[in-house]
């Protein structure tokens, strides 16, 4: 097999069949895939034993560079979709994955990405059961794009919704903010900032199941990816028509992330995360939930960062280290570094 992906690998002939067999099927290694059918098939009765609602989601991954401290596009492609399922309280089960590959991509790179996808899938307890591969002309895509979709089952009585926040609820996050955004800036290198920050890219489904065991009545739950914590809080405030009040001094942010934000004039509230969730829970359950989360590998820096109020108005309010308050709005576009 040539050591570089060519258009032949996408044309449906022998080259593609060999690529699928030797790179995808052998690595993902599960019965569904080895049947080489055009679709994976599941027994509905079996699914219904685990819960009465199906969760289904999809996401695309175009991160540049493909490999960054703490992760890569493969790990991200599985984690992102697993987390979207987990945020609905679902137990993720099966994933699909579709590759769009630019001709000329070294096959070793593809193998490394696929290996990383399988490692992450195993860690999250899911199987990659169906997929597709397309190869495009040089220049019409940036090396490699991946789309994954995922299916999971929501257990009885779990009812997590963005509209679920109630006055008095506690707002909780499971660790440091902005690590992923900082790791990408470092890896991309165009701003020539060297730091040792690693992406927090990690599956959160096990953490969520642990949280549900201690606090079945989680009101809202969402992972704070693009747009960061500020965006998720605004989404909750909008959907639940309430005010999310956060205390700036309670926000866990690494000093290196703060340093990078100070240099570039960025606000860590808007930096991307890939392994952080925001939970809104009844205040009575908050302390015990935090303790449980802090004993979990994906939540050792969990913190209560604020609470839900009715007044003064719908939106997100932050009490600064100064005791004054400022509104935390959504951004219009992407947050750009500034000099002034």
């Amino acid at each position, binding site marked *: 097999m040539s050591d570089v992906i060519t258009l032949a690998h996408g044309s449906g002939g022998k080259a593609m069949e060999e690529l699928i067999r030797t790179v995808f099927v052998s690595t993902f290694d599960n019965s569904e895939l080895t049947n080489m059918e055009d679709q994976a098939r599941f027994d509905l009765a079996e699914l219904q034993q685990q819960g009465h609602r199906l969760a289904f989601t999809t996401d695309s991954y175009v991160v540049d560079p493909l490999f960054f401290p703490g992760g890569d596009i493969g790990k991200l492609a599985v984690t992102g979709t697993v987390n979207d399922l987990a945020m609905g309280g679902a137990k993720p089960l099966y994933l699909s994955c579709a590759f769009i590959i630019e001709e000329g991509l070294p096959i070793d790179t593809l193998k490394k990405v696929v290996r990383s996808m399988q490692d992450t899938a195993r860690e999250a307890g899911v199987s990659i059961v169906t997929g597709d591969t397309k190869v495009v002309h040089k220049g019409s895509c940036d090396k490699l794009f991946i789309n994954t979709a995922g299916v999971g089952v929501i257990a009885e009585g779990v009812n997590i919704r963005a509209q679920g926040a109630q006055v008095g609820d506690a707002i909780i996050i499971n660790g440091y903010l902005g690590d992923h955004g900082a790791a990408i800036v470092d890896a991309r290198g165009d701003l020539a*900032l*060297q*730091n040792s920050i690693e992406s927090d890219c990690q599956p959160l489904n096990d953490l969520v199941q642990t949280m549900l065991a201690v606090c079945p009545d989680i009101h809202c739950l969402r992972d704070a990816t693009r747009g960061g914590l500020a965006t998720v809080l605004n989404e909750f405030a909008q959907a639940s028509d309430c005010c999310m009040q956060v205390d700036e001094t309670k926000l866990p942010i690494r*000093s*290196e992330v703060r340093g990078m934000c100070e*240099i570039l004039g960025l606000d860590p509230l808007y930096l991307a995360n890939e392994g952080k969730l925001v939970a809104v829970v009844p205040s009575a359950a908050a302390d015990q939930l935090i303790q449980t989360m802090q004993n979990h590998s994906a939540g050792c820096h969990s913190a209560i960062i604020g609470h839900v109020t009715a007044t003064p108005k719908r939106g997100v309010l932050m009490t600064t280290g100064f005791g004054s308050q400022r509104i935390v709005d959504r951004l219009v576009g992407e947050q750009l570094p500034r000099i002034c």
Partner: protein
Amino acid sequence: MCLGIPGQIVSISDEVNHMAMVDVSGVQREVNIMCVVEADKAPEDYIGEWVLVHVGFAMSHLDEEEAQRTLALLAELGEFQEELDQMQQGVTAEEQPL
């Protein structure tokens, strides 16, 4: 007018072009130090110095004494403030509960 952030020079990376590595809370960036070096001092003498970094240039030294003087002024303000508050509350120094 312009975002400037304090950083510490940790090494000299390119003497010819006056470039040095600066550390800001664990993040390192190569910056130009032409605006903070004097002809008679070797670049290595500046290692450990704190400088204000703006758009990839060290634009000024950070004067440790002046910083301390400003902070002392602010702290004094604090004590002066407490005495004032106590006077306003009619509590003279002697009657202050131990």
